């Protein structure tokens, strides 16, 4: 048996990639440049596609390959390209101005990761299966952490584009949870979810563009005329 056919090797690879995904999420919280943020998101999506591929390979589940290919195509390539074009076309300042400063944000992200491990623990009792069946189950806390940190990023950011980015990374957490817990949803659901996420991203991009035109700024904290 070649070493890459051993499920244990696959498990290690998945754990390694999931750890990188989490690191990238915290990177997105920690650094201030919008373009770097978009690239971090692209790499994160690429790693997710790799995780999905690995799980598909060891389980022989063909429909996860489709999910992986879609992730690669849309989230790792298409959406980052669209977002980068948008950023360069509307000539906004390239810096993210969060409400909470960076060191504190990173500490909060650390606490959210801890919380994710606490939440995920009771769910993992049945997950400790040997061999192929338990593959990737240990990434559930990472998925929950992505979800929570994505949430925090959305609240913490002023600019419209960066909020969209936070929403997308939050959805990456969902994708990881779906892949690692259930080895993917049924194919039709997966396609539907992808279609929806894509359309939502397009609509948000159009809204961002219009907000820029109307308010001459993308500062969401200025969207505060409607009250009461």
């Amino acid at each position: 048996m070649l070493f890459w056919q051993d499920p244990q090797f696959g498990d290690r690879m998945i754990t390694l990639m999931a750890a990188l995904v989490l690191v990238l999420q915290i990177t997105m919280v920690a650094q201030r440049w919008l373009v770097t943020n978009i690239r971090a998101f692209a790499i994160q999506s690429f790693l997710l596609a790799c995780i999905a591929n690995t799980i598909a390979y060891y389980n022989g589940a063909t429909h996860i390959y489709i999910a992986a290919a879609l992730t690669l195509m849309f989230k790792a390539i298409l959406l980052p390209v669209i977002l980068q074009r948008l950023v360069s076309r509307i000539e906004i300042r390239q810096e993210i101005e969060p409400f909470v400063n960076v060191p504190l944000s990173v500490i909060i992200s650390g606490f959210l990761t801890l919380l994710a491990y606490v939440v995920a623990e009771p769910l993992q009792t049945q997950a400790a299966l040997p061999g192929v069946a338990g593959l990737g189950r240990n990434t559930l806390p990472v998925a929950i952490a992505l979800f929570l940190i994505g949430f925090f990023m959305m609240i913490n950011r002023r600019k419209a584009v960066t909020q969209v980015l936070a929403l997308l990374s939050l959805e990456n957490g969902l994708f990881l949870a779906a892949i690692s817990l259930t080895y993917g949803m049924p194919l039709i659901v997966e396609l539907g979810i992808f279609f929806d996420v894509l359309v939502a991203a397009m609509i948000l991009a159009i809204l961002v563009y219009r907000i820029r035109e109307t308010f001459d700024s993308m500062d969401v904290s200025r969207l505060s005329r409607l009250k009461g």
Partner: protein
Amino acid sequence: MTIPLLLLIPLAASGITALARGRRAMELIHLFSALAGFTAAILLAAEVLAQGQASWGNSFLFADHLSALVVLLTAFVYLACSPYSIGYFRTDQINQVFGADEDGSIHLAKVRKYFVLTPLFAFSMFLVALSNNLGVMWVALEGTTLASIFLVTFYGRPTSLEAAWKYAMIGGVGLSMALFGTILTYYAAGQVLGTESLNALNWSVLAGSAAKFDHTVMRLAFILILLGYGTKAGLAPMHTWKPDAYSEAPAPVAALMAAAVLNCSLYGLARFYVLTVRCLGPSFASQLLILFGFLSIAVAVPFILVQRSYRRLLAYSSIDHGGIMVLGLGFGGALGPLGMLLHMTFHSITKPLLFFCAGNAQQHTGNDSLRKTPGGLLHALPVSGPMFLLATLAVTGTPPFSLFQSEFTILRAGFAAEHVGLSILFVMLLVAIFAGFFYHIAQLVLGPPNDSPKGETCRWKTYPVISLSALVLLLGFWLPAPLYFLISGAARILAVQP
């Protein structure tokens, strides 16, 4: 065969409208599709009443009493909105809302947007109620958000962009939580049923085996579903997008969102409620539902009392009614779900009337401010004015109107479940809402005539108001037997014993 037909009608209508040339053709297609959709919904309800359930395509699409009821209500609201929207947009053109527009091309483009997107909106709502697969149901609910975002930005004002942004972001986060809940449910089901087939997310399959699901997973899943679909239904504290979106969207869109989307998101919540109760017993889900229901009713009270805009007033009323329905479900027993579904039915008939009257008043005075309008709408709008008052009395649950019956049923369910203190508090909050709502609308409608010009120029806008008012009055005294059987059949689905 009615099930695929129901989905095809709005899809086809949307496609044909996109290609249609003139405004008149678009209006005709829209009217016809709404009529056909409502007929199909009645046929489906008849089929479900006769056979217990209907399904299509290897039970990919599936309808029981609950889905048939929600489909019927959605089709009804869509039907009520279609003639009204024709009058509403014609008035917009006369008022030159989109600026100087000599050949009418800007107006035509705007109206085309409405007539293309609204059938898609209706299509997603039908799909929510008809899909057996809970994942597809999620996709369809997200679809309702996507189809309606550009209807919220219809007027292109800075404030409508702000409203659409809040709607998209809060709705997006909410639905992602609901998706997480769906994934966890699938995980719980997969341990029992195996994950190989598409059927493992089918409600009809899950409902049978929910008792064996893992308790911890289902508990977390229900919390996420409640937060997610609760956001879509506008339950407090996730309600903040609602007043903005409802006041910025055109009146027929707001009516569709307030009456039909609310039902669909509560429908999604109710499906998971049944699974959770089967798995965990009634107390866990009930307590959460009662908490969120009360919170929504209580949040609406101060905002209704000090409100400055009547369109936002209606939105808070809608938050309040969403809370009442969730409360009914939370009280449980045999009466709670029955009260909830009666309330859903009556609310879907009364709310569009209220939005149409408010839309007429807004188009007449040019703003929706309660302060700037001097009152005396009764004289300027001889039809919509008095009907606005009537609809206000109906929607706040005054006897003899039908919402009184459903609120009373929920109250009885509360006493039956021995929530005496909560039930009394519920009545007090309802009285406060009635007082605030009635005060504002009476100020607006009553009063001496002023020199503002006479309104009611368009028959397309008054006839829907008149016919809906007649229906609201009629329902106060007589509920058709087949409709009642449909509602009580749906209530039996929700009144689960673990």
